[in-house]
């Protein structure tokens, strides 16, 4: 678990770190959409080049980056294998029962592999360079148009930022409870399935009661500090659109248009 990179924040002051969170969020979303338009070697090359540039500019070492996404590689390989073995068409090299390997299926499998990798890379860059609170703020900004249809954007943003804030706290508590129960002779993660499930009770009950206590204390503290509702609030952290955002969008849009032109129609 400790070398799992996805969803963690790595402090820094690179170009990517300094961009505003709403533009990073939208940019990642846009990039994922563009990935699905890519369908030949040149389009994938352009997108891979772009991602490489982003990773370099984020200041995270590539070796560490690759190590961090290694835990996901089995999922990708499994999906790619299914794609290779079950798709048909083109020149068939080998077949056995329902399985077959052809040149098209190999190429499609390869593309799918790159596609997965690109999506994971862009989202990892996003979470590595943006604090969870900034992501919550970004989500709030991005979802603001939904207010028109009476979607409770502010409440959602508040819940999101509280949830994100408590993830590390609850993780720490889980660790402590885990260790405390281990000291009392609980064996986590060994034995039969039934044994393992019952071993989870001494962990889950304290974790839930702890979370309920946190919620109670937090809501009391919030009320005591004058919180009435999430609609009528001012903001302390304001993220402005900067030149960096404009330039990044320009580059991404250009690559997007390029992909549309050179894709196999």
């Amino acid at each position: 678990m400790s070398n799992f990179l996805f969803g963690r924040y790595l402090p820094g002051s690179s170009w990517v770190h300094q961009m505003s969170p709403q533009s990073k969020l939208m940019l990642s979303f846009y990039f994922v959409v563009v990935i699905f338009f890519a369908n030949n070697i040149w389009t994938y090359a352009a997108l891979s080049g772009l991602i490489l540039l982003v990773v370099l500019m984020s200041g995270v070492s590539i070796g560490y980056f690759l190590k961090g996404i290694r835990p996901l590689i089995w999922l990708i390989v499994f999906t790619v294998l299914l794609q290779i073995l079950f798709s048909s068409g083109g020149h068939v090299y080998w077949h056995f029962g329902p399985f077959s390997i052809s040149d098209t299926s190999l190429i499609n499998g390869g593309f799918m592999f790159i596609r997965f990798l690109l999506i994971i890379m862009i989202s990892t860059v996003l979470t590595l360079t943006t604090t969870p609170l900034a992501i919550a703020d970004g989500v709030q900004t991005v979802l603001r148009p939904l207010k028109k249809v009476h979607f409770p954007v502010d409440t959602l943003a508040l819940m999101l930022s509280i949830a994100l804030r408590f993830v590390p706290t609850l993780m720490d508590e889980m660790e402590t409870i885990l260790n405390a129960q281990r000291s009392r002779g609980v064996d986590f993660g060994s034995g039969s399935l039934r044994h393992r499930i019952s071993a989870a009770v001494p962990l889950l009950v304290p974790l839930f009661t702890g979370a309920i206590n946190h919620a109670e204390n937090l809501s009391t503290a919030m009320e005591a500090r004058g919180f009435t509702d999430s609609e009528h609030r001012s903001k302390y952290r304001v993220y402005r659109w900067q030149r960096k955002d404009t330039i990044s969008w320009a580059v991404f849009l250009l690559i997007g248009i390029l992909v549309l032109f050179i894709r196999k129609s």
Partner: protein
Amino acid sequence: MDQTINFKQVTHTYQAGTPFAQNALSQVSVTIAGGSFTAIIGHTGSGKSTLVQHINALLKPTAGEIKVSGRTITPATTNKNLKQLRKHVGMVFQFPEKQLFEETVIKDIMFGPKNYGVSDEEARLDAKQAMGLVGLDGSLQDKSPFDLSGGQMRRVAIAGVLAMKPEILILDEPTAGLDPRGHKEIMDLAEKLHQQQGMTIILVTHQMDDVVDYASDVIVMDQGKVVKHGEPKDIFSDPEWVYDMHLDLPSAAEFACRLITAGVPLKTIPLTIDKLADAIVGVIQGGQSHE
């Protein structure tokens, strides 16, 4: 069984090999004598909690080895067969009331012994005995632990550890957040276990008064290293050094230092209130302090 705990060149790095790597212990070599009452002090983040979690192998060293209860823990030690070790080493974490989960107090206290294969009846006896030790009223046994007050919950949690009859008891800030009376009761309990049952007690604390009142040995930690190990009077003999370590003097010693600055001729720095009183009486009765 020999209760001596021996750390040999123990290093511990959290999340080794990542940008989040943090060195918590570096090359710690220290021996905690069996049957001693050892206090571990040091300012926040100095590695105290990391050190004590090595004693029952919740954490394993990144380098070096630990000998405890006839076992040697090295970086290669696997998680198998650690249960027996954890029975010998009871560990009371900070805010231990967070670990309660059963429907009734007695069931929660029985949980530890039952994990070690003790029969229901025997576990119940152990639990009742432990409740008596920590001063919990027998009528509470069928209540839900979540209905109790904070201080009572903490005692239930401590009883749950004592019911396993450990030989070494580690207390990580056992009195944090308790009122003065609860504080004294818990500390007196530790003292009683040490004196009557010969338990080795290891106490992690920020309360210097507890250190001088109860401990026979003190280990001072700073930035992941053991910087001093000795009796309380050796540790607190140099106030300048104590302040350098971001620690406080026991209140009696601090008061004595102020008296000395104000010109009262105390010869030594007394560590407890009683000794301070003696020293002041000594000064009044002819300018000589006891000791």
